[in-house]
């Protein structure tokens, strides 16, 4: 579903260069959930932003749904992958009602019958349709993250990119959001790329995990590896132990 070859990202500012992602390659199959774990600044979010088309300064090859995509995406290419961000407070426009926020991707893609679709999307994530009239500040953190997921799913993309979707939430709310994501995945046969620093969340959600450090993948673990606590790299071991697993 996703294939990445030799993805390279360098941020430059004046004379200083920051090589954030160093020639990484990976594939994600249809219906698979891939996890990327790493610490702050390892480049995990940058990989995700490249996949979503938000980052323009990359080189290498990215293929979505079997077709190579460029730095500037067409409308159809953009619809393949949608993103859910970490901060449910920052990712919704504070002065747009929830309905308006959800209708925006539909309008941008030129869909009709917007309001019935908004209503349906809210129901799918377990929120009453009346929430369309509310503003983001009238919702709790978990409810906002549900709206963010509804917004990402409203165009029925085959791929969902999740950038730390639960790290701003309490554990009980985190469980609700992770359950919602798992249900949607099974229902619609979605492909997920989940980025997180929390190994427990990654191990719960993912079929396969890549460990990232300093812009490269240092280790790859399967679900069985995670359960048994098998690691192939010293850094992974360190992460495992530090996570109190």
């Amino acid at each position, binding site marked *: 579903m996703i294939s990445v070859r030799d993805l390279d990202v360098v941020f430059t500012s004046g004379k200083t260069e920051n090589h954030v992602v160093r020639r990484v390659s990976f594939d994600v199959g249809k219906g698979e959930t891939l996890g990327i774990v790493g610490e702050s600044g390892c480049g995990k979010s940058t990989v995700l932003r490249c996949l979503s088309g938000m980052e323009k300064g990359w080189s290498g090859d990215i293929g979505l749904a079997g077709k190579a995509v460029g730095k500037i995406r067409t409308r159809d290419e953009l619809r393949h992958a949608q993103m859910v961000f970490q901060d449910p407070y920052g990712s919704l426009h504070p002065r747009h009602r929830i309905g308006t926020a959800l209708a925006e991707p539909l309008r941008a893609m030129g869909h009709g019958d917007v309001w019935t679709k908004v209503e349906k999307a809210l129901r799918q994530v377990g929120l009453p349709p009346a929430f369309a009239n509310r503003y983001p500040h009238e919702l709790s953190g978990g409810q906002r993250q549900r709206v963010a997921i509804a917004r990402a799913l409203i165009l029925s993309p085959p791929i969902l990119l999740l950038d730390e979707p639960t790290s701003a939430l*309490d554990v*009980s709310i985190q469980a609700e959001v992770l359950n919602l994501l798992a249900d949607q995945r099974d229902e619609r046969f979605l492909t997920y790329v989940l980025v997180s620093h929390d*190994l427990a969340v990654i191990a719960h959600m993912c079929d396969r995990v890549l460990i990232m450090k300093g812009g490269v993948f240092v280790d790859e673990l399967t679900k069985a590896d*995670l*359960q048994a606590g098998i690691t192939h790299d010293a850094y992974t071991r360190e992460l495992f132990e530090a996570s109190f*697993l």
Partner: protein
Amino acid sequence: MQDRDLHPVLSVKGLNVRFGRNSLAAVSNVSFDVGRERVGIVGESGSGKSTTGRAIMRLLPPIAGVTAERMDLDGVSLLDRTERQMGTLRGKDIALIMQDPRYSLNPVLTVGKQIAEAARLHMGLRGGKARDAAQAMLERVRISDPERVMALYPHQISGGMGQRVMIAMMLLARPKLVIADEPTSALDVSVRRDVLTLLDELVRENNSGLLLISHDIRMVAAFCERIIVMYSGRIVETLTRLEDAQHPYTRGLMSALPDPHNPVRRLAVLDRAKLDLETSR
């Protein structure tokens, strides 16, 4: 610990905090003692755990109504002290370590000046002596190159180093009680453990009490001798071992945590309506 004396460092009985008039209680009827040990307070957002910490420091805004039957530090009441007396107490006898060093350090002063300020205020040291004390303390928190770090501004150091600087500043005066409010939430997992072991080591060395406030029940369980679990402003249970948890809230919290050793397809979710009914009884 050989000279562990029996009377508690901090003793709180019947603490209530209300914001505004006729509003909901943020903290209601909270009682606990902290000896020369490590005690953790666990709870989710809005459970009143940070408010409890701030009430002890008397750092809540005037709109908050704080009442308690007893709130003693080392046998002396904290409640009837003037703001001025509290000022000399804070940082000297009780220290508060906050979540994010990026916001709790002064951005326009170098790290060295800030630690030296603590030495000047609480230990009465002057000039060069205060500087030396600051440098020794930085070495103590395992900063390898204290000379260089002293001259840096907070934005030039990493989060983990910032938190070490914070710990150095707070523990310099050997306070009797250290309140750490989510000290590691803003840090990466690998740095988290270093900061916690450092904090633990220094607290043991000073023979102080530590009140660790966190949302992370596993971390607190691995680190503290006693765990106080709070839900909607009340203490629901006090544990020495996580496995002994009886209250449905604590059990619910633990089953909501994903556990890689024993995977489930769906995580258990808290039944809040039922829980509110049970706790209000």
